Structure formats: structure tokens, C-alpha cells
């Protein structure tokens, strides 16, 4: 934890191609790729490389169909990448056999899903303890830990309820508790708050910021919402058509969008700022203030 420059996640030249030629396609040959695309190949992730430092919140933002959900699933090989290398905590995920991969998913990366993915026939407590059950932990032990995780997300007293009895926001709290109880360094969140109404979404973001101050986890956060990216991200990548269009600190991306695609995301924020009649200068200042407050907090946490 002490070394700030330690990369927990390293991704090198990751590709995901959906086509019958996926296995045989020579991805280092641009002409062959172009030909495959003409023949109907869909390239969801195209030659993406990045590193994520330990304790960093890395936001991947993009429109639907930009490949961001595919990318985050590639990290634990829920979707098998076509090519590239993924290393988490120095271990090469892309070369693991089935058994190693299962162990990796159980112990080193936990995931939160947009559609929660809770088991409808299990109550809240059993849902949170599910990952521990898969690991073969004893009943009492896993329930005690699940109980503690539920307390942390503010759901103490809801243990015996079933998912369908809970609101969307509360179901996602269960989803977060289920990931939290795994006690992993890496947390993958795939549009966790996209299905929630704006007020609840805001509340959940605050909750995540509060929890993150405690945990200091490494979070990969996928979203299509710029506001969310600005609030949560230490660093963000704007993704479009399978590539990282721009990577950097959120405030840098807002202030200096490198191309028209990024500009399209950013202009909404600018319009809101104009509507609020704050003008560009104060708006930029508020973002910078927000960002420095965040980095200040993180630095204080270390």
C-alpha cells in the first residue's frame, strides 16, 4: 500500500473481436483487421492499454456500445479477450487456467452490476454471503461477515428480506455489500447507479465516496454519466468505438477535450454551468476545487 506508484491493474494491447475469425485473426496486421470488419466483425475493444494505481478510482466513460462494459468484463475474463495481456497485482490473468481463474475471481476482484444480479430465491444476508459460500467458508463465519458488510452499507435489520422486497437503491446496496465482503483490493463497478433515479443515484455516489475513504480500494468504475465520472474519478478514460479517446484527470478532460467526441460529452456540463449563470471561470474553479478537495482527502487517507 505504501508505494503510491504501484500499479494494481496493468492492461496491454487488449482486443475483443466478435467474429467467427476471432481466434485466427492477426490483430497486429491493420489490413487483416479492416478486412474482417468489412466481413462483419465487431470490434468491441480495440488495442486498449492502461494502468491503474493502487487505491485509485479509474472511471471508464462512454456511450452505450462504446465497449466499456465489454472491457470491464474482460478484466476478470467474464468475457474472454481475443488478445492482450491483463495483470492484476502482478499476476497474469490472461494466462490463468480455469482453476486459477476461479480462485482469482473469488479472492482478488469483486464486481457490482448495473442489474444487481442478486439471487431472487435467497434473502439479503445469503446474497451478501454468496461469494463466501462459493469459497466454502463455514456458515456462521460468512453470516457474521455478511452482517458486518450490510451494516457498512446501511442495511442492518434487512437481512431476512428478499431482493424483490427492496427498492432499486437498496438492492444495489446489497450488491455493494456482496462485493465488499469479498475483501478484495480490486472492485469492478459496471454502471452500478445507472438504473437508479437521480436523487438516489446522488446519495449512492456520496455513499461510495464515504466508503472509499475507509477502504482505499482500487475501483474501476464504468458509467455513461459525465457528472458521475467527475464526482468519483481520480482519473478517467473516455471510450468510443472500442478505443480510449482520451485518458487523464477529469478536470483536464473537461477543460481540454482532445476531439469532437469528448467535446460532445463535455458540452452538457458547460451548458449547465451557463444556465446557472456562473460563467466559465467560476465553473472551472468549482471543478478544480472539487478535484483538489478529493485529492486532498485521498492524500490525507494515506
Amino acid at each position, binding site marked *: 500500500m505504501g508505494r503510491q506508484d504501484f500499479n494494481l491493474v496493468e492492461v496491454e494491447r487488449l482486443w475483443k473481436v466478435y467474429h467467427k475469425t476471432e481466434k485466427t485473426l492477426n490483430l497486429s496486421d491493420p489490413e487483416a483487421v479492416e478486412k474482417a470488419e468489412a466481413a462483419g466483425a465487431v470490434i468491441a475493444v480495440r488495442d486498449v492499454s492502461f494502468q491503474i494505481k493502487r487505491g485509485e478510482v479509474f472511471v471508464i466513460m462512454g456511450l452505450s456500445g462504446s465497449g466499456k462494459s465489454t472491457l470491464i468484463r474482460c478484466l*476478470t475474463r*467474464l468475457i474472454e479477450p481475443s488478445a492482450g495481456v491483463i495483470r492484476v497485482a502482478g499476476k497474469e490473468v490472461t494466462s490463468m487456467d480455469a482453476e486459477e481463474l*476461479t*480462485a*482469482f*475471481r*473469488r*479472492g482478488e476482484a*469483486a*464486481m457490482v*452490476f448495473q*442489474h*444487481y*444480479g*442478486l*439471487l*431472487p*430465491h435467497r434473502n439479503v444476508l445469503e446474497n451478501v454471503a*454468496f*461469494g463466501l*459460500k*462459493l*469459497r466454502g467458508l463455514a456458515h456462521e463465519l460468512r453470516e457474521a461477515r455478511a452482517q458486518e458488510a450490510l451494516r457498512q452499507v446501511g442495511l442492518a435489520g434487512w437481512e431476512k428480506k*428478499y*431482493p*424483490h*422486497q427492496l427498492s432499486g437503491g437498496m438492492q444495489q446496496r446489497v450488491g455493494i455489500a*456482496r462485493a465488499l465482503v*469479498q475483501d478484495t483490493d480490486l472492485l*469492478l463497478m459496471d454502471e452500478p447507479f445507472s438504473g437508479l433515479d437521480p436523487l438516489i443515484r446522488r446519495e449512492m455516489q456520496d455513499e461510495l465516496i464515504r466508503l472509499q475513504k475507509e477502504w482505499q480500494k482500487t475501483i474501476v468504475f464504468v458509467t455513461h454519466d459525465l457528472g458521475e465520472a467527475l464526482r468519483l474519478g481520480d482519473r478517467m478514460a473516455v471510450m468510443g468505438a472500442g478505443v480510449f479517446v482520451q485518458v487523464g484527470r477529469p478536470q483536464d478532460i473537461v477543460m481540454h477535450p482532445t476531439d469532437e467526441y469528448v467535446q460532445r460529452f463535455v458540452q452538457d456540463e458547460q451548458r449547465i454551468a451557463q444556465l446557472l449563470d456562473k460563467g466559465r471561470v467560476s465553473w472551472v474553479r468549482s471543478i478544480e476545487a472539487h478535484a483538489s478537495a478529493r485529492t486532498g482527502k485521498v492524500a490525507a487517507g494515506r
Partner: protein
Amino acid sequence: MFPSDIEFHVAPYISDFVKWITVAWEPFFTAFSNMVLGMLLQIEHLLVAIPWWLWIIAVTVIAWRQTHEVVKAIMPGLLLFTVGIFGFWGIAMETLGIVIVSVIISLLLGIPLGIAMAVSDRCNTMVTPILDAMQTMPSFVYLIPALMLFGLGKVPGVVATVIYALPPVVRLTNLGIRQVSSSVQEAALAFGATSWQLMKEVRIPLAMPSILAGINQTTMMALAMVVIASMIGAGGMGEVVLICTNRIDVGGGFEAGWAIVVLAIVIDRLTQGLVRRWDTPGG
């Protein structure tokens, strides 16, 4: 007209094959026959050993616990009472015994087969036409070979019943497992579920309402077939119907038909209650 000089018949070959298998595999079929017969006798003994009033009380209690409505709780017991009034109690238990054994065998074969079909697309494409054939083939057609292989009596009745009643539970197990939401499955995999854990903890439990509906269907079809199987000496209620038909005994036929319908209603209510009970906690 279709030219008769290119007509070709497989009938003699099939007949020869069945004749051959009857002789060559005789020890196997005898052993199987004895096993099924032993199981049947045990279950029949048990069913008859339970006094009639206890049956009615048990059925009423179960119906009450499932519905919590007075009328719906009393009806099955009352209907069962009429079976005894018509003098069919023992014969009805005999029928019930064959149904239970047939259903047990159907489930032992059908649920694993349904799971295999859900897991493997190849298995699915191979088994589906066989299931279609089992469901559309007139049951009299396989009554004859069943008769040759196992002789007269209850065992060929059970075999024919299994053939007839097996498809629904296979299909609905397969369908239920395939319909389990992919987002729940993905979450389980993300937390490190092995394929066995995924099946045991997620897919089968979530498919349970569908599987139970399949068990209900299989049971109802088994009851329908057991009546037909009386033509090869399976006994039970179907035999009464058969005798009444031969004698053109309309009244007797009605009584026997009534008793069969009552059995069907009671079995259906009890097994459907099972489906509902499973449905409620998960929502």
C-alpha cells in the same frame, strides 16, 4: 398413385428385432421386471396400509396449508371420499401405486436428461426429436413391444407410462434452466462460481418453478396413461373402465370415470400447491 413396385417395408425387420431382443436380452428384462415389480408391491402395500380416513385427513391438511381457504381445503378430501363410496378404494390405490412408480422412474430419468439438454446444445438437438416422437406416437404402438418384452401385467404398464409421461418433465427442466436470467448467472460467475456451483446454487433453484410444473404435468400424463395401460393387464381403475366399456355399462363407466377424474384433481391440486409454495419466497 404412388408406384407400388418401389414400396418397401421396415415392419418385418422391426418385428424381427423385437423378437430377437426379447430372447437375447431376456435375463436383463426379467431382472428389470422384477425390480420394478418389487418397487410397485412395496408402494402398493404402503398405500393400502394407510387407513382411508387418514388419507382424507392428510389430503385435507395439505390442501389447507397450501390454500388457507375452507372450501378449497375440504374439496379434495370430500372428492376422495366419493371414490371410497363407489367401492373403488383398493383399485384406486393400485392405480396410484403405478402412477407413483412411473413418476419416480420418469423423474430419475427426466430431470438429469433435462439438465443435460440445458447444458449441451448438441444433446438438445439430439433428444428433442425423440421427445417429439414420444409425444406424438400413439401409445398403442409401444404397448405391443412393451407387452412382448415384459409380458402381461403391471411392469409393461409402467414402461409404457414412463414413455408417455417422460417428455414434459424433460422439456420443462431444460426450458427452466435455459431461462434463468443471464445477469444473475454472470454475477455468480464473477464471484467465482464453478460450473457445478452455478448449476446447484443458481440455475436449478431458479428453474425450480418450471421443473415443478414439469413434475405436475408428468404426473397428470402418467395417470392418463395408466388407464390405457390396463389394456395390457396393468389393472387398476382402467380395468374397471375397460370392463364397463365391453359390457356397455354406462353407469358403471361413469362411476369409474368419476374416480379417475377425482384422482387427477387431487394429485393436480397437491402438486400445483407445491409449485406455488416454491414461487412465493423468490417472487
